[in-house]
């Protein structure tokens, strides 16, 4: 047992850090550092910079562009990415659809889609949730009816991040009404330019446009765009959830937020000195740092088990990473909100969304509220904390 990073791992960290330092465009970095949303162009540009270095799809199988790094290196890469204020690689492409195509797509699909996914020549969004299928995802009702070599897809998706920017959507649809609800679902790739696809923005409480309703009205989807077998889509989607959740803790991002809160607190007056000198603030920050440290080690334990193949994606610890990671993301955002104080009051959704407008009050405080607000979704989307607790309870209680 040696819980220190090995010299090789430390060297790797240095290499990654230097890479981010040298190639991350300054205007993108500044946006991310200030908590403003990168534009679609920023996302694509950054992903292509990573792809050019061979680091866009690090977790993929090496034959499709993956780096072959073990889980600990993947973690280091992510952590440095957050600390460098770099945007994440586009998660719908990299973490969600790519691995499904690799695992369950046929040769032709892999050759066609994977390079385009890696380079964001196709910008994907995820069509899973529906108005009546939120926490109970398998209750989805969007239907796909076979018609020759096409599916005719009709239904409605909700909470679809990036749908207004995406070229493609990977989508769960019901192909068998008579089966048990998990067993009649298929996994389709849908071209957003298809006739019958309508995207309607859903504005969230931060004032941002992150998510959408997507209406599918007799949309024709070639059967060749189905990944894997008909009616097995639920199992494909579920198969990869574990791996996704390991990263959803986003500890590096929370650490970076905490660091930022401490830096900024030194600028904020309080009690004749600064907020950074207030003991109560310092205890709050220290308590968060402790919890983040603990969660970081919990994460590394899971990653180490995955690396040594002694663990599985069904390990309840993975739900713990999601539960605790989302709480700490919210807590660090709330600390930043506290630091911003009255400077967080002006509502300036355009500025936060990256538009080229003047900022009211100090820039460092202008996204404290929208980030705090949008992060309320961290414990709701991607399997709510209540659902995670149900999963863990089932696994540990066996009831």
């Amino acid at each position: 047992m040696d819980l220190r990073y090995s010299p090789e791992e430390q060297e790797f960290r240095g290499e990654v850090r230097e890479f981010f330092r040298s190639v991350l465009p300054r205007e993108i970095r500044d946006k991310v550092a200030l908590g403003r949303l990168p534009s679609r162009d920023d996302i694509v540009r950054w992903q292509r910079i990573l792809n050019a270095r061979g680091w866009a799809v690090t977790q993929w199988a090496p034959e499709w562009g993956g780096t072959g790094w073990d889980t600990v290196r993947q973690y280091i890469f992510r952590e440095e990415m957050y600390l460098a204020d770099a945007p994440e690689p586009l998660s719908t492409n990299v973490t969600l659809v790519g691995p499904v195509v690799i695992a369950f797509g046929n040769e032709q699909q892999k050759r066609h889609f994977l390079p385009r996914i890696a380079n964001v020549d196709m910008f994907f969004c995820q069509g899973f949730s529906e108005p009546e299928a939120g926490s109970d995802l398998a209750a989805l009702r969007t239907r796909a009816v076979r018609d020759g070599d096409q599916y005719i897809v009709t239904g409605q998706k909700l909470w679809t991040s990036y749908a207004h920017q995406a070229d493609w959507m990977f989508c769960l649809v019901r192909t068998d009404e008579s089966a048990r609800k998990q067993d009649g679902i298929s996994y389709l790739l849908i071209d957003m330019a298809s006739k019958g696809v309508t995207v309607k923005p859903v504005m969230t409480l931060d004032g941002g446009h992150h998510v959408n309703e997507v209406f599918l009205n007799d949309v024709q989807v070639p059967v060749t765009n189905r990944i894997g077998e008909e009616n097995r889509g639920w199992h494909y989607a579920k198969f990869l959830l574990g791996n996704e959740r390991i990263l959803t803790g986003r500890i590096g991002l929370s650490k970076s937020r905490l660091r930022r809160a401490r830096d900024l607190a030194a600028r904020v007056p309080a009690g004749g000195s600064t907020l950074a000198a207030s003991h109560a603030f310092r205890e709050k920050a220290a308590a968060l740092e402790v919890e983040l440290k603990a969660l970081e080690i919990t994460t590394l334990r899971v990653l180490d088990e995955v690396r040594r193949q002694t663990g599985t994606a069904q390990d309840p610890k993975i739900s713990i990473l999601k539960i605790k990671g989302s709480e700490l993301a919210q807590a660090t955002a709330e600390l930043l909100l506290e630091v911003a104080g009255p400077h967080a009051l002006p509502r300036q959704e355009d500025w936060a969304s990256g538009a080229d407008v003047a900022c009211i009050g100090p820039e460092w405080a202008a996204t404290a509220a929208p980030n705090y607000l949008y992060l309320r979704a961290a414990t709701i989307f991607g399997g709510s904390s209540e659902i995670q607790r149900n999963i863990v309870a089932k696994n540990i209680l066996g009831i």
Partner: protein
Amino acid sequence: MDFSLNKEQTMIKDAVERLMHRHYTFAQRDTYARGAAGWSEAMWQRYSEVGLLGLFDSDVGGPVEAMIVMEAFGHSLVLEPFLAAVLLCGRAVQRAGGGSHAELLQDIAAGRLLMAFAHTEPSSRYELSRVATRATCKDRRWILSGAKSAIMHGDCARRLLVSARVAGEPADPSGIGLFLIDAGSAGVRRTGYTTQDGLRAADLVLDRVEVVAADVLGPPGAMFPLIQELADVAIAATAAEAVGAMQALHDMTVAYLKTRRQFGVAIGTFQALQHRCVDMLVELEQARSMALYAAMMASEPDARSRSAAMSAVKVQITKSSRYVAQQAIQLHGGIGMTTEYAASHYFLRLMAMQARFGDGAHHLNALASIDGREVLPAA
């Protein structure tokens, strides 16, 4: 010890609730918010008609009346500048101006004059005595220079009640004066904007703004006690507003849990969610008690006791608001995240309140700085 309302109070309550019921549905509110002013001039006239705009006058209404109105306003997320123009500026003018500003007071009560309280500054955060704006006296006029920020409803106010330092260091409680200026005066630059909770506000830059002697409120240099009183009035008012908002949000959440179905049942049948609703109610009732305490203590003449009580009020209100608002969104799930649904707007109001008149951390710190076996005055 008597928690019942008297006849006049009951009448005010009924009148406000009737106004809200008729004119302040979520859809109507949305229309007001989208208007140029960000609120409803028609509502303002209605408030005036039922006498609400004169509630700064201690002969007409005290803290209990303010509580009744603010709770109803919180319940409907009212957008109009009642707190800023009436409870704060009206009171300030009445308390400090004596008879010389009777006309101002009539105009306020009649809904003809909007004022705003321009006290907070870009670097003052929650410290009431931190005033860097300077007022210097020259030929019987005062010249004001400095910056003010996050002035509630400062964008639409015709007159501004501005605090400025006539002597002393930036955080000195003594040496602060209150001045009335026209928003259109030479040297006033203001930037209006919407705040997170849909209210309007403004930042001001004052560059050698002239004030005549008649527009000086009370003895310049000795106005800190009044400022502190206004802050305490504001805390009591927002406490009631928060209770109204929390009540509405709790009702909404309970109703949602009864109708939303997942896994084949109403999600209100899940015990974990039920218990969360109960804990929200516990927080709400604790907050309601502290709003009552605020109403009781707002007229306490001893400033130290009063401010300590208001710190306690803010600590509880912040804690309760935070829990109720966060859980309401969580229990609503995705729908709670959207601005189409009312819950998110309640969340925003409850969040924004925390950054006005001192947040929970600020006030807990204030309480912790008091020595004694108890830090709160007895009920």
